[in-house]
Every structure is written in C-alpha cells, then in structure tokens.
C-alpha cells in the first residue's frame, strides 16, 4: 500500500531532480507519440470526414470494419511492423527495427485507424447537415471536407487528444519495435513495464504519474483552446 504513497514521493522527486535519464525517456515518449499523432491526423482526419459523409454501397460493412480496426491490439501492430522492418523483412535494408523511426511508424499505424474511426463517426453523425448546406451553396468535395473540419474543430481536437493519449500510454507496439534500449528507444511505458518486472514498484508508479501528468497538460491545452470558441 505504501508503494503508492512512496510512488507519489518518487514522482515528485523525479520531476524536481530533472534527472537526465528520466528527462531523456520522457522527451522521447513525447517526441514519438506527438510525431505519430501528427502524421496519423494529417492523413486520417480528411479521409475520415470524406468517407463519413460519402454515400456508397457497403457503407455499413465499412463502418463495422472501421470500428473494428480502431481496436486492433497494439501488440499485433507492433508485431506486424517488426516483421516488416526486420532484417529478413521487405524493408530490412533500411535497418529500422529498434530505432525511434520504427516506433514512430508503429504508433502512426496504431493511431491512424483510431483517428480515422473517431472522425468518421463524428462526420457521419454530425457532418450530414453541414454537407447538405455546403452542397446547396455550391461547395465541391474539397470545400465540404475543410468546412466540416472547421465546424467540428472542437470535437476533432478532442479526438486528436484521445489519439495522443492512446499513443503515449500504449506499451505493446513500442516495446516490440523499439526494444526498450537504454538511451535509444526507452520510453515511459516500456520503463514502467521493465520496472514492474524488476519489482521496483515506487519508480513504476512515479513514471505512471508523470505520464498521467503529460496527458493532463495536453488535454488542458486543447480544452482551453476549445473554450475560446
């Protein structure tokens, strides 16, 4: 039980000490998850809106598959990316496995369906009326998609925050493709999971708290931005 209080104390110590190694781990976590979220959003948001408002045959089936893909386990994504990037795999010559780039690729693939699915669902339920209005005012597909993104800005921002949180808190994919190599690919969650298997509970909880804090800051930024509206 006192692990938890001890964890709090350690967390505060960690944050104050600005220990170089911890700093490296935390900043790598942020770097990897931010890059992945940005790449995934750039691709998935316009596509999600586009397919959300588009009427086409088999849209029901498409919806089901979309929602299913949102929950592909991170270990599976990690595994597939690892196989593709490994020396024996098709992209073996780039020597990407167990690097930061591999982690960004894996997390991008992990959150792409999430961002797509969330945007798709949003556009499907609330984009319809906007699309109708845009259509009657003479907007083409491109205008319509950008209009809907602007109109649903707040909800889309919340979705992006959700994706970021998913990325930074997942361990399966980064562990498999990153390998938790000290100084290279060690991020918060892989450290937590290592600390846990080493029985160092207070440190694991401390890092967990740091992670929650990062999430909180991101949500606060987005939330205060959305309040301006």
């Amino acid at each position, binding site marked *: 039980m006192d692990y938890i209080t001890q964890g709090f104390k350690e967390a505060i110590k960690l944050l104050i000490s600005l220990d170089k190694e911890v700093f490296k781990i935390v900043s790598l976590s942020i770097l990897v998850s931010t890059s992945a979220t940005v790449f995934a959003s750039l691709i998935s948001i316009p596509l999600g809106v586009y397919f959300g408002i588009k009427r086409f045959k088999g849209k029901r089936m498409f919806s089901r598959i979309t929602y299913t893909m949102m929950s592909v386990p991170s270990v599976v994504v990690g595994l597939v990316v690892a196989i593709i990037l490994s*020396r024996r795999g098709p992209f073996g010559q780039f020597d990407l496995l167990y690097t930061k780039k591999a982690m960004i690729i894996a997390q991008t693939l992990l959150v792409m369906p999430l961002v797509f699915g969330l945007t798709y669902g949003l556009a499907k339920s609330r984009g319809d009326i906007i699309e109708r209005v845009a259509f009657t005012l003479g907007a083409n597909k491109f205008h319509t998609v950008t209009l809907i993104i602007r109109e649903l800005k707040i909800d889309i921002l919340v979705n992006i925050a959700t994706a970021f949180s998913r990325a930074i808190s997942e361990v399966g994919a980064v562990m498999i493709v990153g390998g938790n190599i*000290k100084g*290279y690919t060690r991020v918060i969650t892989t450290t937590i999971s290592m600390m846990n298997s080493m*029985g160092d509970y207070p440190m694991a909880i401390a890092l967990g708290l740091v992670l929650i804090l990062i999430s909180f800051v991101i949500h606060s930024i987005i939330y205060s931005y959305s309040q301006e509206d």
Partner: protein
Amino acid sequence: TPKTEEPVEPDVSKDVEETLDTPEVGEPTEPKKPIILSTTTSTQDSGLLDYLLPIFTEETGIEVKVIAVGTGKALQMGIDGEADVLLVHAKPDELQFVEDGHGTKRNDVMYNDFILVGPMDDPLNLKENYPGDILEGLKLMKENEFTFVSRGDDSGTHKKELGIWKEAGIEPAGAWYMDAGAGMGDVLKIANEKQGYTITDRATYLSMRDVLDLDIVTEGDENLLNQYGVIPVDPEKNDNINGEGALEFYNWMISDHGQDLIGGFGLEEYGQPLFFPNAN
C-alpha cells in the same frame, strides 16, 4: 555442447525427515490447495515447466500456478509473500534471501549453461580464437567497442552477465553496450537486428534458432554455468502462504524422480538435455 558430468546420483538420505509422505509414482491423491510458483521466464519459455508440472500435479494432487517473471521480481515476490515457492537462478541473492529469513531453506536443483551468440560471420573471430573462453571474448568486445546487447532487466541472466564482466575486469559502458531492459527472447531479436553479440541461455536460443541469424560463438566456459535453486517461502509471512504445498514441491524437485525427469527434458526435441539436474 558444454562439457558437463552425467547427472549426479542423488543422495537418498538427504532431507528424508522433511519428506512428507511423498506419494508413490502414478498414485493420484485428493486435490489440495494449489501453490504459486514464482520463477524466471526461461523455465517457462523453454517448456520445462509445461513438461514437469503436469506430472507433479498428477502425483501429488497439488496444482501449480506459475508466475514467470525476472529473477529480481521473483525474489521480490518471495519477500512480499506473494509466492509460495521460488525456482530462480541468482545464487548469491538466493543465499542472502534465505539468510534474511524470507525463505526456510534453499537447494540446488539443476543448472543449464549460457552461451555467447553473435553474427553468423563472427566479425571478431571469437569462434576461431576463443571458442571456450568467454573472458577473452568480452575483452575483445570492449577493445573493438563492438555491439553487445545486455538484458539490463535485473534478471538472473542479467546478474550472471554482469558477474562475468566483473570477472573479466571490465566495466561495460558506452554506446556499443546496449542495455535492452527486456526479456531473453526480445534481447536475442535485438542482437539479431543490430548484428551484435549477446549472452543467452541455451534453451531460449535453441527454441528461437530458426528465426535468428545468430550463431553460437563461445560455450562451455566454467563462468557460463547457471545454477538454479528452489526455495520455499517463509510460511510465517502471511496466512495465505501454502507452506506445506511449497515443501512438497521442494522435495519433489530434488527427489530422484524429479531429478530424472529434469535430466530427460529436451532430449527428444534437441538431442541434448537443456537442464542438468544437480540437487545435493
């Protein structure tokens, strides 16, 4: 293959007074309270436990729940009273554990051996120059600053590896020394990708050989032997500990019968035993 003696004939007189009516082989008994065995991933991943435990359960009526973790965590679970019995490999720590009163006693059970594996083309030519001398190999590694992947997870294997570096008089550090903080399988894969060297237990390497481009470079050195011990956790720690079951497991593992079974494991699949029984 490592140079090892035949499995030692166990001394029957040992621990007789503590052997609680060990049942005859094959005679089923009433189900009893299960025990929690905390052990290392290597015993689970090699398949040893899948092979041994059903037999143990059938013979004693005690079910065994296995929690496979690093040796560090396994010992911690013992200290916390979360496990009933431990099967681990970090002898100095184990002795300390018993001395501190966390366990009632400890016995050697078996050993396996570690090997140094590296790229197929063996860039340091260790296989040619030092096929049986791990210390010289590590010195060369350090001189050339050649990539070496370490478990770095406080596991028994990690502790063993650090012990060997110490023996060689080297403080491993630098960009060439990768601290993976991961399990054995993962570390082998990392070494494979980075085309570096690593120290691994033979069982894990053999079971993953097909997916790796790594070869055995050094083996058979005294320093590479890896001793497993069994420790029943002090039953006084809390009311939930199944002290009797733990003792029964302890005795079974070091009994002739248990030892024979251990010695026979892996013969069929790999043509060589993976663990060498040596209870005394």
